[in-house]
């Protein structure tokens, strides 16, 4: 009846997962009870859970990312803590648990922290920057989000019911095959990633269509803001790369469930197929994350330097070059696995070439700042911290791109330090810069700057104290994923790294306090103009937070920096109030529970597949199909906002803006 599921699945004899799981469950339950008692359920259901508004969905993505950041960071503390104490001893984490933690840390941080954060920012900002009312497929967008959340839920359920994968953040066979990993851990991993991966592909389809087919009149390709360009590149990569991940994990699942022989070491299976396929997705994935991050930095640097982005066209070319070359470097993840010197040389050179467009970008940002009136706000600090740190991380990447050097550094802590050095300053700092920069757009008030700067310095220093030692012990021969060790040379460095993670913890604490403090003092920090930073692109041309339809009248774009241009012309002509446009009624998509219900059935199906509860699998699939039919059957997919309502909302916005322009003109 319940497949493999029994009471044995609950780890009663392992206090750490049991207590942490119980704590999480209690917190969740507490939040739920609070929400129900305060009567927020109808509001949440109407305004958020069923919302198909890209801004709301973006905010929910970022909330998911923030929660998962905390979960992944707790894993990081446990890993660093274990290595700090496990010198000549077994530490406090048994190997089986330690292995689950490093696997969960990587999986969560990439799939459920970095991806939702980046996709969330794209959701919030791309339609606004394009000057349109929503993405191409609003309900599909909601489905994408909820499938992502379903995947995250499954990973976290594994904490209390069963176990998580012990095979690292990528389930390398033959270790991940049934013979060597008979438990449910790898299945949890695969089904969680499959479900959220479908959501990600749908996001890619949605955003490519939005960016290529839905832009405000006059916005040609060379007038698109840089963040939209990088979002386009990133979503093109999603469409080309994520299906490979889906196919690869499907093959691994067939191996595990139906005794196929793709990657087994028997009956002609070839585990190197897995390495090639997974990294043909895995390397583009790096750029799926970092290209939008580059876009965020471009927006931030240009705004806070008071200058247009230097070398816009070279930036576009660099972005698209990275987009293409990122598919030609995957083999550098396994130089040591015997492809031969010629093949290794080709991929080594390609890996070095991809550093060139990235270098172009760094110079463009520096020249944007050069000669500008630079305002050292916290988003700009994150950007400068990124530039300095990322250059070092990038250069260590060029080092490991040399096959002969890689034979020494492969699988060492040097490599781990390298990719943390690119992904934390590259993606996480960008996420924080974007979060601070666009927070007023999403919520209508700014975040506290003083605490924001504290958070930045704690993160920057904490990051370097935590990860600079990785380079040292890596060169001294320490391999990754060591549960315990007995080399006294490594000890001081690992203690230093543990100190670094403590500083990072302080940084996160300051960020949480920043959010609470800013919400409490929101009345003093209201953004009434919709343009708190004197911005340059269209997202600042509407109020904060924007009305549901974003723009009462679609803006007419005549320039690469449309809103900056509007402000300049208004000031030049001293004609601060343009004549009121003819307001038309606006059609907007109706909210729909399709996304939430689909994700519910996806979670049920995934869970049933993990535990071999076959009747529930069938029920779940039927449920998902019925949901789609009901969605397809509805008669009124859209509702109309009458012209008077549009006019009322827009007049308030125009008034605030006129006041603002008058103030600028003074």
């Amino acid at each position, binding site marked *: 009846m319940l497949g493999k599921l029994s009471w044995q699945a609950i780890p009663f004899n392992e206090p750490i997962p049991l207590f942490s799981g119980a704590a999480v469950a209690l917190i969740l339950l507490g939040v739920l009870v609070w929400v129900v008692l305060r009567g927020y359920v109808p509001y949440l259901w109407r305004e958020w859970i069923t919302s198909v508004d890209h801004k709301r969905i973006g905010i929910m993505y970022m909330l998911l990312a923030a929660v998962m950041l905390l979960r992944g960071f707790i894993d990081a503390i446990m890993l660093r803590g274990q290595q700090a104490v496990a010198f000549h001893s077994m530490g406090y984490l048994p190997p089986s648990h330690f292995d689950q933690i490093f696997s969960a840390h990587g999986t969560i941080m990439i799939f459920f922290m970095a991806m939702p954060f980046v996709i969330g920012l794209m959701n919030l900002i791309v339609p606004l920057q394009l000057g349109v009312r929503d993405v191409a497929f609003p309900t599909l967008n909601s489905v994408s989000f909820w499938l992502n959340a379903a995947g995250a839920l499954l990973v976290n359920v594994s904490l209390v019911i069963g176990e998580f994968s012990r095979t690292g953040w990528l389930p390398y066979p033959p270790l991940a095959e049934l013979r060597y990993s008979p438990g449910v851990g790898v299945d949890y991993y695969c089904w969680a990633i499959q479900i959220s991966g479908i959501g990600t592909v749908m996001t890619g389809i949605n955003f490519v*269509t939005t960016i290529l087919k839905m832009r405000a009149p006059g916005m040609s390709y060379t*007038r698109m803001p840089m963040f939209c360009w990088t979002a386009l590149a990133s979503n093109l990569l999603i469409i*080309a790369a994520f299906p490979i991940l889906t196919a*690869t994990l499907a093959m691994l699942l067939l*191996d595990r469930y139906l005794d196929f022989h793709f990657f087994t070491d028997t009956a002609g299976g*070839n585990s190197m197929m897995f390495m090639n*396929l997974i990294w043909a997705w895995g390397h583009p994935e790096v750029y799926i994350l970092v290209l939008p991050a580059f876009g965020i930095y471009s927006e931030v640097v240009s705004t806070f330097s008071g200058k*247009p982005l230097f070398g816009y066209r070279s930036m576009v070319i660099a972005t698209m070059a990275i987009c293409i070359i990122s598919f030609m470097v995957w083999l550098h993840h396994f130089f040591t696995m015997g492809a031969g010197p010629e093949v290794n040389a080709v991929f080594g050179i390609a890996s070095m070439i991809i550093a060139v467009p990235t270098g172009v970008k760094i110079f463009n940002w520096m020249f944007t700042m050069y000669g500008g009136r630079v305002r050292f706000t916290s988003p700009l600090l994150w950007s400068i911290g990124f530039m300095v740190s990322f250059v070092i991380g990038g250069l260590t990447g060029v080092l490991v791109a040399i096959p002969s050097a890689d034979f020494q550094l492969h699988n060492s802590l040097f490599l781990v330090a390298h990719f943390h050095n690119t992904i934390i300053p590259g993606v996480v700092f960008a996420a924080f810069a974007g979060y601070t920069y666009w927070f007023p757009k999403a919520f209508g008030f700014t975040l506290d700057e003083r605490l924001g700067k504290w958070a930045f310095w704690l993160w920057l220093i904490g990051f370097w104290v935590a990860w600079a030692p990785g380079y040292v012990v890596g060169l001294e021969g320490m391999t990754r994923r060591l549960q315990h060790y007995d080399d006294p040379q490594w000890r001081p460095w690992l203690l230093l790294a543990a100190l670094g993670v403590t500083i990072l913890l302080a940084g996160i604490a300051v960020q949480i306090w920043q959010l609470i403090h800013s919400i409490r003092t929101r009345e003093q920090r209201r953004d009434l103009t919709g343009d708190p930073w004197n911005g340059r692109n269209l997202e600042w041309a509407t109020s904060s937070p924007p009305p549901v339809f974003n723009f009462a009248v679609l803006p007419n774009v005549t*320039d690469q920096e449309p809103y900056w241009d509007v402000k300049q012309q208004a*000031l030049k002509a001293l004609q601060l109030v343009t004549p009121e446009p003819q307001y038309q009624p606006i059609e907007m998509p109706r909210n729909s529970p399709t996304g939430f219900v689909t994700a519910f059935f996806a979670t049920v199906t995934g869970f049933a597949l993990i535990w071999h509860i076959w009747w529930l699998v069938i029920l779940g699939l039927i449920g998902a199909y019925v949901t789609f039919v009901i969605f397809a059957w509805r008669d009124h997919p859209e509702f109309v906002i009458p012209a008077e309502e549009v006019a009322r909302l827009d007049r308030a916005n125009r008034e605030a803006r006129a006041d603002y322009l008058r103030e600028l003109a003074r």
Partner: protein
Amino acid sequence: MSTEVLRAPPDPYHLGHRPASANAPPQVTGHGAGGPAPKRIVVGYGFWIFLLSDVVIFASLFATYAVLFKNTAGGPTSEQLYDLRNTALETACLLASTFTCALASIAVGERSQKWTQIALACTGLLGAAFLSLEAREFASFVARGAGPSRSAFLSAFFTLVGCHGVHVSAGMLWLGTMMAQFYAKGFRRDIRHRFLCFTLFWHALDIIWVAIFSLVYLVGTEPRQFLP
């Protein structure tokens, strides 16, 4: 803040494509410059991109099949298993179903409920015939001890061809839903958009079948002729 700072900096090299003067009309350059595309274009375009992502899944499976083709682990080889007559029948069914699907498009264009339903029913029947032929082939392989667990080659074969079969099955489910929608709701615009996507899907499955027919069955029957 003074106005001086806010003036747009000069753009002598036209890096930002500013118009020559503030009053000059916007230069309409590039795609989509005239504002958002109409709904039909957006829906069709989005579905094309979905098809591309689906093709990438098949590309991964084709690559895997190519790599594992010779890994028969002492079990039956492609020459011993493949039967081109069955494949020819399958191909005929699928190509004919594409033809009837195209007829359905014409009928929808003519707003003819009767002919739409007839053409779609024929498409579904031909699809079912294709699926039953494929199921018969799979069953005969398994009966001869050549199931997917026998060797890496057979795992790859069953997955690649089976993935196409799963797509056809999903297409059949979609087709039934489409017929019901036309019947219950008529030729509403959003339903016609969905039908456009369905036809794209059905034709794309045909294209993939052509690749399977050539690269799997033709090459597999005479591997010595095609492979080094």
